[in-house]
């Protein structure tokens, strides 16, 4: 029982990170119908900006952890969002109105470019960050097995909840969110309602990148090591999560992320760590076969 609880906590932490990345995939797919394969790289850049920010703050002497965390969070979101914006502006917008596969190919190119860009600038070595947030709570002990939730896990879960609340409010209640939903359904008609479609699409990329940056920061804190290649696997897993939840649906992306995190944690906990990726991608295959629209996705209605 305690072992189960521990895997549940680990799985939810992992799932929160997948979910935050998955939202970026889902939103972009919803609004322009493309899979942004460079999104995993945006997450990786978020992690690098976090680690650089921590080091800079350390140099400036800001070492009080809560303040440092808040500043890093803000810096990572701003700078990563700028990357997200630039990727859309440079690699996707010029191809809008081109054939359907063009932006997809461009996205794969962008992904390779960003990986190499970080590799050249930062080197291929693994970058460590000493633990910033330590400690935790012991929830119970049973025959030598201790269930604990670390402070970093608490921070990850709380931050995810807070971001989801802010995010849902933007989508549901503000004109920007309304414009995004309008663009999802009909770009041309949204423009006729006075919505600046290009800007709305840009902001969608910015929002997705900001959330990916938070996931990058979380990964940096949680694992303590990052390298230029982490975006690939995390990106594909988050994409799996988005498909599992129903691509295009934002609650679906979060749900898919959590489920995927839980599956991975339980698989590692009860079977073997080696095949956890196989389990994750096995889910992708099963979902695509039996539930192509995902858990919360709506079936695609052909426009007449």
């Amino acid at each position: 029982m305690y072992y189960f609880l521990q895997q549940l906590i680990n799985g939810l932490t992992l799932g929160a990170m997948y979910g935050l990345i998955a939202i970026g995939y889902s939103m972009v797919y919803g609004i322009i119908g493309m899979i942004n394969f460079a999104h995993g790289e945006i997450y990786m850049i978020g992690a690098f900006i976090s680690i650089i920010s921590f080091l800079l703050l350390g140099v400036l002497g800001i070492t009080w952890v809560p303040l440092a965390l808040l500043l890093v969070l803000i810096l990572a979101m701003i700078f990563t969002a700028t990357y997200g914006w630039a990727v859309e502006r440079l690699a996707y917008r010029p191809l809008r109105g081109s054939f359907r596969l063009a932006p997809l190919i461009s996205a794969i190119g962008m992904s390779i470019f960003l990986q190499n860009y970080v590799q050249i600038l930062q080197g291929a070595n693994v970058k460590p960050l000493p633990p910033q947030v330590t400690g935790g709570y012991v929830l119970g002990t049973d025959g030598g097995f201790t269930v604990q939730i670390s402070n970093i896990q608490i921070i990850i879960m709380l931050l995810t909840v807070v971001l989801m609340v802010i995010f849902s409010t933007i989508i549901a209640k503000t004109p920007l969110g309304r414009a995004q939903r309008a663009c999802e359904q009909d770009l041309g008609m949204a423009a006729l309602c006075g919505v600046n479609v290009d800007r709305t699409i840009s902001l969608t990329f910015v929002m997705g990148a900001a959330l990916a940056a938070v996931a990058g920061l979380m990964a940096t804190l949680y694992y303590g090591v990052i390298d230029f290649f982490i975006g690939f696997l995390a990106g594909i897993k988050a994409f799996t999560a988005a498909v599992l939840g129903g691509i295009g649906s934002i609650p679906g992306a979060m749900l898919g992320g959590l489920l995927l995190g839980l599956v991975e944690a339980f698989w590692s906990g009860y079977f073997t760590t080696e095949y956890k990726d196989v389990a994750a991608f096995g889910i992708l295959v099963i979902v695509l076969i039996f539930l192509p629209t995902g858990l919360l996705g709506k079936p695609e209605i052909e426009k007449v």
Partner: protein
Amino acid sequence: MTAPLLEVEHLTMRFGGLTAVDDLSFVAHDRRITAIIGPNGAGKTTVFNCLTGFYRPTVGQLTFHGHHGPVLLERLDGYLIPRQGIARTFQNIRLFAQMSVLENLVVAQHNELMRASGYTVYGLLGLRRYREAEAEAVDRARHWLDRVGLLSRADWEAGNLPYGDQRRLEIARAMCTRPRLLCLDEPAAGLNPRETAELGELLLGIREQEKIGILLIEHDMSMVMGISDHVIVIDYGRKIADGPPAAVRNDPNVIKAYLGETEEEELPEEVKADLEARGEGGG
């Protein structure tokens, strides 16, 4: 005589070798219903697409006297056109089908709300300034729902409305953008005679009370002749008649375009053979 609201001069739209609109010039006025009629494929919707930024005209100048003085529509990005005061509906209805009826009308007031929400910040914080603007937008939406008789269905998902209601909702949404020129693309298509008559009343009401111009593409001749102040007839992209309804109705060119030439056109051999094979009943 009111001042011109829209001046279309020498509008030509080519798609490769096909000339969809050919040197078309006309004027639409404030407080007038200007109808554009013509056989299927005459280029009517293409004119609308040029006016609303979906196409860039090959040749021509489209001067619109909008909210902020005269502008050349062909030089504006699509989303700026509604801000000048042009709204439009579509032949195949384009509602935001997965939004509620009310929300469709609130989206149409995007610009005012975006400004009031300080580009999202105030809206996110739920400040009073934004809440008031939103309440105002909802009031305006309710006003138009009432005008088109959909107030009781404000919370329906727009895609679930019956066809006739969707048509009226599209007009209400267009009106919520506060247009000076309302472009309607076959608003009576698929409506029964009673609904068509109600639509005519609605349009006359909009002309009288909102004091705006209406540009109307329509095939229902009883409606066109009944409510239009001015009729423009186009065929194969060219204007063949232009005048008050009574004059246009008796124009020989118009009759010819609608009923065909008196001499029968020579059909290609394979079409003839096909018709014979199908028997007499070739529609």
